[in-house]
């Protein structure tokens, strides 16, 4: 048995772990906190819309059409059919978040494995990368129209179209992370000890690519929400009378001069939501960046 003296003391007090550092950085960033608060409110409004909404979102009251914001019982006013704008925004948020999460989940499920494979195995890299270029070159709207033509216009199909459009970005991020991590010595050390490709990918590369994937997903959600607004505006997304922020905008433009609030309010909601997601995504990227800890 070898006896090497204990020559180097181990720090007695545990230093802050990575995760705690990230949390601390977010908490010390007022902008990120504001973004998080906006997101939390949006999620609560969307999830509990059934209980929180003051009115049925699809219930028409023609006698109360075009009530301006501030009218008793209608905080944000009503639209041309007398439907409560606030209630419709709440349910619209639900649709938007639904599409955002679904689309990003779709791009994760397809994009992460493809990105890992493309980055790790040089033989299939060229193939996957050319396919990625192909998807990128394909106009998104034609894809969405095509999908709607084949499978019908619905929120789910809109999410799939948006998700497909987001796959190339996800593949590229994961691929470049994989390439970076693959070149690090701990991967070489694992291979020398006899690790299989699956082991290296699952135990070393994927966990280390995690933060980049999280950031990419966070900025993918607002892009998907905007995409949903565009598709619904064109009638390719959610079907009336069910509200989404995009269809509310589309409907309101017909009477925008008479009741501008019916267009402005959902517009502001879209803006706040995407802004909040982008801010949180950016601060997450900064917080996860180990280089930013340097003085």
């Amino acid at each position, binding site marked *: *048995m*070898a*006896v*090497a*003296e*204990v*020559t*180097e003391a*181990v*720090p007695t007090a*545990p*230093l802050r*772990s*990575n995760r705690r550092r990230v949390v601390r950085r977010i908490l010390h960033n007022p902008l990120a906190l504001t973004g998080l608060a906006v997101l939390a409110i949006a999620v609560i409004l969307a999830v509990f819309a059934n209980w929180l909404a003051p009115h049925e979102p699809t219930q028409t009251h023609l006698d109360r059409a075009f009530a301006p914001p501030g009218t008793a019982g209608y905080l944000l006013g009503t639209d041309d059919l007398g439907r409560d704008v606030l209630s419709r925004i709440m349910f619209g948020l639900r649709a938007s978040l639904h599409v955002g999460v679904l689309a990003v989940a779709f791009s994760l499920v397809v994009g992460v494995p493809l990105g890992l494979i493309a980055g790790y195995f040089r033989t299939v890299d060229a193939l996957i990368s050319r396919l990625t270029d192909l998807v990128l070159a394909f106009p998104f709207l034609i894809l969405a129209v095509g999908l709607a033509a084949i499978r019908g216009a619905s929120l789910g199909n809109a999410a799939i179209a948006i998700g497909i459009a987001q796959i190339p970005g996800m593949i590229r991020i994961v691929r470049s992370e994989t390439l970076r991590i693959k070149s*690090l*010595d*701990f991967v*070489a*050390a*694992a*291979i*020398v*000890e*006899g*690790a*299989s*490709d699956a*082991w290296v990918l699952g*135990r*070393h590369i994927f*966990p*280390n690519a*995690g933060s980049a994937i999280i950031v990419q997903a966070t900025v993918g959600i607002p892009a998907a929400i905007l995409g949903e607004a565009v598709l619904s505006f064109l009638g390719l997304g959610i079907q009336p009378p069910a509200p989404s922020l995009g269809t509310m905008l589309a409907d309101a433009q017909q009477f925008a001069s008479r009741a501008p609030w019916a267009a402005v309010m959902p517009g502001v909601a879209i803006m706040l939501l995407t802004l909040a997601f982008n801010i949180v995504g950016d601060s997450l990227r900064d917080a996860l960046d180990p280089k930013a800890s340097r003085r």
Partner: protein
Amino acid sequence: MVDNALEVEDLVMHFGPVRAVDGVTLRIRQGTVVALVGESGSGKSTVGRCIVRLLEPTGGTVRLAGADITHLSRRRLRPHRRDVSIVFQDPAGSLDPRLSVGDIVGEPLRLMRRKDISTKVSESLQRVGLRPEVAQRAPHELSGGQRQRVSIARALISEPRLLVADEPTSALDVSVQAAVLNLLADLQRDLGFACLFITHDLSAVEYLADEVAVMYLGQLVEQGPRARIFGHPAHPYTQALLSAAPVPDPAEQRARRPVLLGDDLPSAIDPPPGCRFHTRCPVAVDTCRTVVPERRTIGEGGHQVACHLVKDDGTGPDVRPTEGVAQ
């Protein structure tokens, strides 16, 4: 019966047009330490990576404990993996930041589906001078020296016959470097593994290595027992390397004058014809520019040199100014 932990025969590794390693022959007897010394671009790390089969050699053979592993597939290689481990230079990059120290050290055993891993991990950590509690820590909580100890603990946990140490102390501070070198020396003596110690720093291996092999532009120029290489270096490049490293003693250092070789290291894409060192060699003659020098044995203990100017009895030109000669 296997005497040699490692036999490398005429190893060649080309990356496209880059002739990184061009015919290296090297043997490491069981339980001995061979230092592979060279400067950047000499191909020394590439030799190390071929031996642990991170690279598949372009030519030649690599035999680990007698078994030819030169072209084995990843799967066929697996039974031989326990015979060899590697420690890298960069203490930051060689430990997975997402894993605990315990998981890192235990990984080789887990890959061999061994049992009782945590006990072995504790033992291995203690052996390198760390407390077993370190197993719960993350790599970024440790200092550079501690991380390098973790790397060594991991490399030795599977009790390999051969350890390839690729500049294990080059990124460390002087005082920490000394501790890690001492640790490696102790472990090597106690556990008896063979070691290929790759370094650019001759002084780091003087008291660790049994034999020294000096590489220049993809080829070995001289190899032999430590005392011979340090005491009677025959090849002009070895002599220059020894004289160039400044010694921490002002009186002595100022009395010696290093051999100035000029800054331009030839490219490994288009290495010079004849002796590859002739473009920087202060004593090169016409033959050196055209004829490739053969490796010849010039002294006891297998002292070999590849230089036209060294005679068979080991005498030859000494490029060092007189006051720099040993003895």
